[in-house]
């Protein structure tokens, strides 16, 4: 598809682009077991990557096994039939490769980065842990300590993380987005080997994955290797659908978190919004940018630079299969109260709802999103991550190249409408993190 080029020209008058990735550069096939593979040949460096997107995250958990998806992400490195404990990492690193993984509310994503000539080894390593994971009870125990430490260091060093898990818990009372991805301490300490085995069988099935390979590889070679290593892994029944729909919120919810070392109040507001695939997605993303992307954004300009109520403001909209949250996060300046910061923030939201946004703001967001897109597409890793993300959330990686057209369709009226629809008090949760104990004495 060449439309990306034309759209760039019309939107931004970008000079001829000679090498930027286009939809036609990406090749796709599906193995007999249902595993989807996407390949982009890219010789810009002598390296390649393999990104495996598994459709399992904290939304697939329930009380008692919260955090299991993330724990499982760790266990996938801890030994399988051919490559026993430690051998996955040792083998990969000895071949010049490195890896990581991340877990979200919706996905578990494994990332292998390697010299392109180590491609076959990557298939062998991945196939072994997908088909023949061997969960060693002793390793489970030491890994619990690792995950406890990961949870602890997040809470120690990140106020956002501390506040975020509390706000989610209040905003959702039914849907599994209620708990943090890392899970509750008591669940981390108590899930069983059987929980893990069941989880692997259910979710690490080839029909539940999208694999993206980008780099100095040949498509034919990738296809041959995928057929040899991944195709023999049997498909499994579709995992249980997550059918829980969060009941409509009928009034504002609030939470307070005390942390002694916090030096000024942190405020996190969260509003229920539809999933990523919904028609309002782009308008919401753009609203987020208009509010807080760049120093000229509304919240930064007003709260940071003019009123000096905040030192920083950001918006966050997680990609999501189910209805999730639109987050507004602000850190108060020293000596500013949480109440004043909240009032200032609400006043800005109200202004968008009542007055709408300008054409200039709309155009700014379109322009900056397009430049950001190119920044993402500068690296083979950015490409793999972006292609996979679109394939997973939109069920079509080609949507990625429709971005300029999708943004172009959104009008100032759309932005105002989504602000009005979603950023309303009754639909919101307010979380405050501060250094004073929440006490009746303070209320007097």
């Amino acid at each position: 598809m060449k439309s990306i080029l034309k759209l760039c020209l019309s939107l931004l008058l970008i000079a001829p682009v000679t090498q930027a990735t286009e939809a036609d550069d990406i090749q796709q096939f599906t193995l007999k077991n249902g595993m989807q593979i996407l390949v982009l040949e890219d010789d810009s460096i002598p390296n390649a990557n393999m990104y495996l997107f598994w459709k399992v995250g904290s939304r697939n958990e329930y009380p008692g096994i919260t955090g299991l998806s993330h724990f499982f992400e760790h266990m996938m490195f801890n030994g399988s039939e051919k490559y026993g404990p430690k051998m996955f990492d040792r083998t990969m690193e000895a071949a010049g490769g490195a890896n990581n993984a991340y877990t979200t509310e919706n996905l578990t994503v494994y990332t292998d980065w390697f010299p392109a000539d180590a491609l076959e080894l990557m298939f062998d390593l991945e196939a072994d842990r997908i088909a023949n994971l061997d969960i060693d009870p002793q390793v489970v125990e030491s890994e619990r300590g690792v995950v406890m430490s990961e949870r602890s260091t997040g809470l120690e060093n990140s106020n956002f993380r501390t506040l975020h898990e509390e706000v989610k818990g209040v905003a959702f009372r039914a849907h599994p987005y209620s708990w943090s991805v890392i899970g509750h301490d008591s669940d981390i300490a108590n899930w069983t080997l059987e929980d893990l085995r069941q989880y692997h069988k259910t979710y690490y099935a080839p029909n539940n994955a999208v694999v993206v390979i980008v780099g100095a590889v040949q498509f034919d070679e990738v296809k041959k290797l995928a057929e040899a290593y991944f195709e023999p892994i049997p498909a499994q029944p579709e995992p249980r659908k997550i059918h829980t729909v969060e009941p409509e919120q009928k009034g504002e919810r609030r939470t307070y978190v005390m942390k002694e070392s916090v030096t000024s109040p942190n405020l996190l507001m969260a509003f229920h919004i539809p999933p990523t695939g919904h028609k309002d997605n782009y308008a919401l993303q753009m609203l987020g940018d208009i509010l807080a992307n760049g120093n000229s954004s509304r919240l930064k300009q007003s709260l940071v630079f003019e009123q000096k109520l905040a030192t920083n403001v950001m918006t966050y909209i997680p990609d999501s299969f189910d209805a999730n949250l639109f987050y507004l996060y602000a850190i108060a300046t020293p000596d500013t109260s949480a109440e004043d910061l909240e009032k200032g923030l609400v006043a800005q939201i109200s202004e968008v709802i009542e007055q709408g946004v300008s054409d200039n703001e709309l155009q700014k967001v379109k322009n900056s999103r397009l430049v950001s897109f190119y920044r993402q597409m500068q690296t083979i890793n950015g490409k793999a991550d972006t292609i996979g993300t679109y394939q997973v959330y939109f069920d079509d990686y080609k949507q990625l190249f429709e971005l300029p057209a999708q943004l172009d369709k959104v009008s100032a009226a759309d932005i105002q409408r989504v602000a009005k629809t979603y950023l309303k008090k009754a639909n919101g949760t307010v979380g405050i993190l501060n250094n004073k104990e929440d006490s009746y004495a303070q209320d007097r």
Partner: protein
Amino acid sequence: MHKIVNRLLTILTFSVFSVSAAEFKLPVYEKLVLENGLTLYLMEQHEVPLIDAVVTVKAGAVQDNKSGQAEMTANALLLGSGGLTRAEFEQQLDFIGANINAGGGLEASQVAASFASKDEDKVLKMLADALLRADFAEQEVAAYQQRHLAALQQAQESPKAVIGDYFNALLFAGHPYAKQRSGNIASVRTMQVSDLKDFYTKWYRPDNAAISIVGDFDSDKIISKIKALFGNWQGNSENFSVPPAKVKPAKAKVLLVDKPDARESTYIIGGKGIARSNPDYVALQVVNTILGGRFTSWLNDELRVNTGLTYGARSSFSAYQQGGSFSIYTFTQTDKTKEAIDLTLKTYARLWQQGIDKATLDSAKAYVKGQFPPKYETSGELAELLSGMFVYGYDETFINNFSDNVNALDLDKTKSLIKQYFPKEHLQMVVIGNADALRPVVSEYGELIETKIDTQQISL
């Protein structure tokens, strides 16, 4: 053709990355020096319609008279210039999706722009305005000072964010490398506009600066644009050189930083490192990879994989012009602190006691070579690399000979590297956590010094 330009040095490497050879080479770049002494690095990259332009000035915290001067001077350049207020400047950049960021480092400051190639003229002009015609308006600087103070205060909420400053203060005591990169609360509070102007006047001179431009542009055209925009920048910088960092601790010391509500202990153990110009720089990266530079490194294997004491442990060399540091960093829950520190020290001692075997060395060599090319993939990364050449004096052989330098390392050489460079005695330690719980534990490891994480300035 470029009559106003002296081409001191034109380097041509004849190809971009060659895949089949699997040898990673730096793409073609040019280095020129304008008549006013300004150095210019140019590297065309046409994959995406983006350009990164980084102005680097050899002036950092080491030149601070007041702690934070370099950092604040760099940032003050973006508070209004060339007839635009700060707000107008930011609005214009945001509208086209461009960024200009500034910051002071230890030995250099930077103003870095990233933008769509169609906006080349506009953003380069704004970059020149910021560098050459900044307003230094009282009100904007005062507001920025308050923001910076708040940022310094908020950094103290996170042990991870501040532990490096404490370690440098302990290790480099009395040397400019001990200075806090972003300044401290006490000194930033006293900063005047005149301090920033002084710093600017002294160090922001063309003979002390380089512009590195990488991305989708035409070299011939951009040279004349840079000449037009920066050619009138005049004056000479003062002479300055950092004295050699003679790190020679007479005894082991432990700096305990109290954070009463800490749920874990965060610590660094280390000592003297190397200068960036050290010929063994690359070889030491390989040895360090084995100790603490990758997932399967000894430290991570022991402290994370075998014992579950931490989420991660690593070690690294930080190399500067006149010296550097070596450090091991990790964290663990408060009541496991002794167990973790003992295991850290025991694992570190394997370097001398057990040494490195051939299979591990081969693996580390493959790893550092395999993971090298993606570090220099974007125009931003490449512009940073070129800036590093200007500040630290290395050239493209760092990239082009990287594999050869790695391949040349054998077991005998690793032994001598370990002996020569890894600090073995009088290790310096910083621990941030609950001091009351940790005091009896950590005082075993050396002379105890105590401070608090919310201190106004680090004074030991």
